[in-house]
């Protein structure tokens, strides 16, 4: 029974009581329309509902910025329902673009209704709980509520930027064919050099031009081995990534970068693993190809920042990292992480740090720095950070500072250039 019923019932009871106590027939007469109204409500009161609902989605995996159409089918298996209110509420990160998730209908026995709405959402994993079906009589005096189970899950993947390949050269590569030149002789396609023919060499590899200059010797072409690498992407998800720029969290930019880099490395054929470093370390084990890409995107979709005092400094157990492989660390780079990165470099890892500039976020947070002292403090912070990044570079770590007003594609190009220059420098030194 609804509160409307109690209001009417109260008025009706009061009128009848007053009429009886005062022996005033007119009041009783005047209460009759009330009584008829309530009795009609009683007559049409909803019985036990047997409703069946089904949810259909155009897709259950979308990328941020895309939309999904959800169609709901409800069938009435029992007696007629005069007014049926179907409603469904979502997490606040999901937004309805078109259509309605609150629908009123009247349903005959065996009738089926169908309605649809279009949703878009931010990165995340969303579980649909089901519908609330509220059947009421035409006068809203009696109601019956029921939860209709319509399971469903929607995963909104982070946006991914298609970027050009970054030619990494970690110290250790894997035994499978890939894009990394190892400077070792093997079954590649890039020419490495010429050596004297040895028994068992393929005749197709004989360099006839070099051989004709020497009367008694044959020479064979050597090709460079090309291998794939183990790449470990470490995504910093500690609370210092919660700073905002134009209403978007720094962490969202970091996730975007992690997803784009993962795709690029996987497209190159590398084995990728991922660590999300928050209160709990989430790991995606090494893998290749589209399945791994899906796994990484799914993990990134549900990633969020969280705090644990034991994670204030970056500490990663060695068993979670690919041995002497390529590490990519995406973080605003708090000073406490400096030592760990140097240690990883000393352990023989090739380290690339993509640092989202936290000072840029501070400067664009909308807080004015009117006092000369605060402006001076900002300058000191800038110098301190620059110094830290330079120290990392000198230790052989590739560092890219990203102020997020630049598109990530541009940042990718810069990383690529730096990696190439870095390799050339090492070759020159060697």
């Amino acid at each position, binding site marked *: *029974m609804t509160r*409307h019923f109690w*209001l009417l*019932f109260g*008025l009706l*009871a*009061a*009128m*009848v*009581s*007053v009429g*009886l106590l*005062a*022996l*005033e*027939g*007119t*009041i009783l*007469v*005047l209460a*009759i*329309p*009330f*009584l*008829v*109204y*309530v009795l*009609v409500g*009683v007559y049409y*009161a909803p019985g036990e509902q047997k409703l069946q609902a089904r949810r259909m989605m155009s897709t259950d995996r979308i990328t941020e910025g895309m939309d999904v159409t959800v169609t709901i089918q409800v069938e009435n298996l029992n007696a007629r329902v005069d*007014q049926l*209110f179907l*409603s469904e509420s979502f997490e606040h990160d999901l937004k309805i673009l078109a*259509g*309605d998730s*609150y*629908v*009123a*209908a*009247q*349903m005959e026995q065996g*009738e089926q*209704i169908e*309605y649809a709405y279009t949703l878009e959402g931010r990165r995340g994993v969303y579980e649909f709980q089901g519908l609330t079906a509220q059947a*009421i009589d*035409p*006068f*809203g005096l*009696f109601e019956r509520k029921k939860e209709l189970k319509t399971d469903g899950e929607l995963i909104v993947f982070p946006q991914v930027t298609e970027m050009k390949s970054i030619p990494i050269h970690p110290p250790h590569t894997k035994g499978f064919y890939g894009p990394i030149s190892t400077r070792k002789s093997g079954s590649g396609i890039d020419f490495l050099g010429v050596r004297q023919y040895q028994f068992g060499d393929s005749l197709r590899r004989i360099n006839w031009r070099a051989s004709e200059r020497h009367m008694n010797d044959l020479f064979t072409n050597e090709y460079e081995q090309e291998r794939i690498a183990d790449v470990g992407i470490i995504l910093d998800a500690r609370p210092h990534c919660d700073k905002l720029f134009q209403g978007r969290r720094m962490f969202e930019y970091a996730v975007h970068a992690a997803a784009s880099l993962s795709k690029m490395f996987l497209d190159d054929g590398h084995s990728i693993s991922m660590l999300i470093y928050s209160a709990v370390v989430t790991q995606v084990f090494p893998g290749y190809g589209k399945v791994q890409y899906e796994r990484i995107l799914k993990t990134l979709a549900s990633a969020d920042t969280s705090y644990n005092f034991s994670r204030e400094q970056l500490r990663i157990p060695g068993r979670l990292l690919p041995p002497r492989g390529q590490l990519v660390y995406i973080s605003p780079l708090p000073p406490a992480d400096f030592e760990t990165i140097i240690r990883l470099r000393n352990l023989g890892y090739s380290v690339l740090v993509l640092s989202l500039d936290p000072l840029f976020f501070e400067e664009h947070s909308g807080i004015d720095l009117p006092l000369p002292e605060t402006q001076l403090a900002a300058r000191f912070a800038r110098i301190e950070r620059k110094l830290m990044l330079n120290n990392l570079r000198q230790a052989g770590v590739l560092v890219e500072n990203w102020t997020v007003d630049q598109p990530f594609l541009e940042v990718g190009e810069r990383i690529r250039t730096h990696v190439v220059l870095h390799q050339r420098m090492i070759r020159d030194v060697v």
Partner: protein
Amino acid sequence: MDRKLFFGVCAAIAVAALLLAYGIEQIWFGGSIVIGVGLVGAFGWFTMRREYSDWATGLFLVGIVLMITFGAFLDLNLFLLMAAMVSGLGAWDLMRFDKGLERYALSENSLDLERRHLFLLGGTLLGGAVLALVVAFVQIQIGFFTALGLGIILILALSGTIRLIQK
């Protein structure tokens, strides 16, 4: 829009009928209270679909019923009181119906939901009014205790029906 218009018309009829009933007997104090009730109804009309509009129409209905009851004690015109009662109840119902549908879109095959409700409401109110007027002109002399007994039977029957529905 239709619902808002119907609500306005019904509320206006209820207030006008009551005003007329009190005016005929020149009970200006009662008339002024009816105007106050009308203002509450007008407030409900202007603030339709807001949080407190529900309370305003509830108060409007209570006010109308109170004034009708006083009117019955003062032997005002029965037809006018009946018109006020039926219209007041109709106005309150339309407001409630509108509030209920506020957040909901109507499904494609249920576009006549509103029309059906209006017909049912009209029929119920008309039926109630006719029945009441028929009862008013059929005079049966019964004693206090008989009337009290009938009243108790009525209330028990009503509560029994409700218990039946709850099961």
